[in-house]
């Protein structure tokens, strides 16, 4: 077929298309940010929750667990662990690690203080109240 295919036109379409879709992404992100207050549970973003998030990060919890489905797939989902297990169970569980059962997956003991345990629970509670469009499908995560 005797069509035309020039490099200059291919280049123009690349730049045009890339800029167009990037701007669209920026516009959508802008809309998302302005709509977030309705879904991100920011009303409950207390000092304790922020400290809890810091503990979550500095113990690299995401290296084994998922949080809202993101992370490693070695250990249970924790986005909904608060409604699944409750505050006391979570604290007792963290304190009793590692189980030391031969051949079973082990979680380190992080030697958290009572205050730090409360903070991590506050963070997990806050996380469980984020509107995730009904994910996960059931309480097992």
């Amino acid at each position, binding site marked *: 077929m005797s069509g035309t295919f020039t490099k200059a036109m291919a280049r123009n379409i690349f730049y045009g298309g890339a800029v167009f879709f990037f701007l669209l992404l920026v516009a959508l992100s802008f809309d998302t940010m302005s709509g977030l207050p309705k879904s991100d549970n920011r009303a409950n973003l207390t000092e304790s929750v922020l400290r809890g998030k810091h503990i*979550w990060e500095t113990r690299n919890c995401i290296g084994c667990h998922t949080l809202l489905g993101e992370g490693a797939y070695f250990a249970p989902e924790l986005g909904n662990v608060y409604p699944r297990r409750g505050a006391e169970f979570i604290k007792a569980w963290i304190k009793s690690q590692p189980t030391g059962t031969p051949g079973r997956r082990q979680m380190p003991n992080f030697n958290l203080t009572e205050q730090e345990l409360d903070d991590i629970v506050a963070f997990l509670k806050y996380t469980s109240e984020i509107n995730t469009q009904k994910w996960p499908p059931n309480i097992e995560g």
Partner: protein
Amino acid sequence: MKYSSQSVAMPYFIAAIGLFVGQIIFGLVMGLQYVVGDFLFPEIPFNVARMVHTNLLIVWLLFGFMGATYFLVPEEAETELYSPKLALLMFWIFLVAGAATILGYLLVPYSTLAEMTGNNILATMGREFLEQPLLTKIGIVIVALAFLFNITMTMLKGRKTVISIVLLMGLWGLAIFFLFSFYNPGNLVKDKFYWWWVVHLWVEGVWELIMAAILAFVLIKVTGVDREVIEKWLYVIITLALVTGLIGTGHHYFWIGTPEYWQWLGSVFSALEPIPFFAMTVFAFNMVNRRRREHPNKAAVLWALGTGVMAFLGAGVWGFLHTLAPVNYYTHGSQITAAHGHMAFYGAYVLVVLTIISYAMPLLRGRAANDERAQVCEMWGFWLMTISMVFITLFLTAAGILQVWLQRVSDTPMPFMAVQDQVSLFYWMRLWAGVVFAAGLVTYLASFFVKGESKPLIHA
């Protein structure tokens, strides 16, 4: 090799392969921990092994990209590198910083490492793939800027080809989007939202530019097809990649506290994301079929074709498999995600780096191609690694399907750990496939040491 400064690529490639070996060792450790839970505990807990595994992957791919760039840009620009000394200096800084970071992961408790490295000043650690201490992150930015300066200056004084422009755009994008790793708000939803601006806009955005540019360069060299033709297709492919991939970011915004409309946007655009990968496969095969010369480096051609096929399978097909929101509702964060991640990274980025290494290494060592026997050995490495990666993916997919069924779909869902016990057979099979992969890697390494008569250097 046409310009002596291209030789700075050599240490980058060697470091890349060395770190690749480390990555696979830790991969095997984790594979074993999946079935023998207390293996190496408490010396190397799973989260440390995983951090090392994924961070080594990222770092060695970056070494590979930088090596590829140092090799490719002088040749494309038809001029010596602006500053080979700076390139070597940055190599050592990056290597030492990388090694120190990995040692830090292995030797110091993560929370102590965080305190030692200023995480309390600006908290950026503890997020998947962005676990690096603040100092390392700053180091990455400095190395990246020095690298980009060096490359940009080289290009400014020489010929500006489409390949080098696209490559440079990808690299600049890589550096710019990495800056989002410094933004870590307390609001978890925002944190996750912009975390993807690094992760997704890297691997399904700017990295695709880098990959396509490297592939195009190698194809020009090994097929002798007209540059004009290859460059036009390069533009078409990267256009398709960005048109689908940018809004395709939405497939990560389904269940993390973001508005519902992302389910539609993400589903529609990411359903189109296989198209650029498919185009790349067709492109690679076409160029090889139309070749105007028989390049003596058969292995490099094999790697290039392998990149096309495996990227399409891993990123395109396995990505599409679970990208539609109604499917992803059940598969999100399961072993299916792991299956996709393994094959996509291997197919798209591991293979493209090994492609340029396969093409460039003989030239850097002063010959057009390796001896026949060395190439056969290298191709054995390709097939062993590629086929075992296919099996790793299949076993993880099987594990994932069973996991999703028992834990998510069932009317009487089972708890996570109970399900893990149910699927352990697949984890064992994945581990054995991983062992074969390691054997393939050893074979590949051995190919560098196979002696024989080398092909004389020819100039294209």
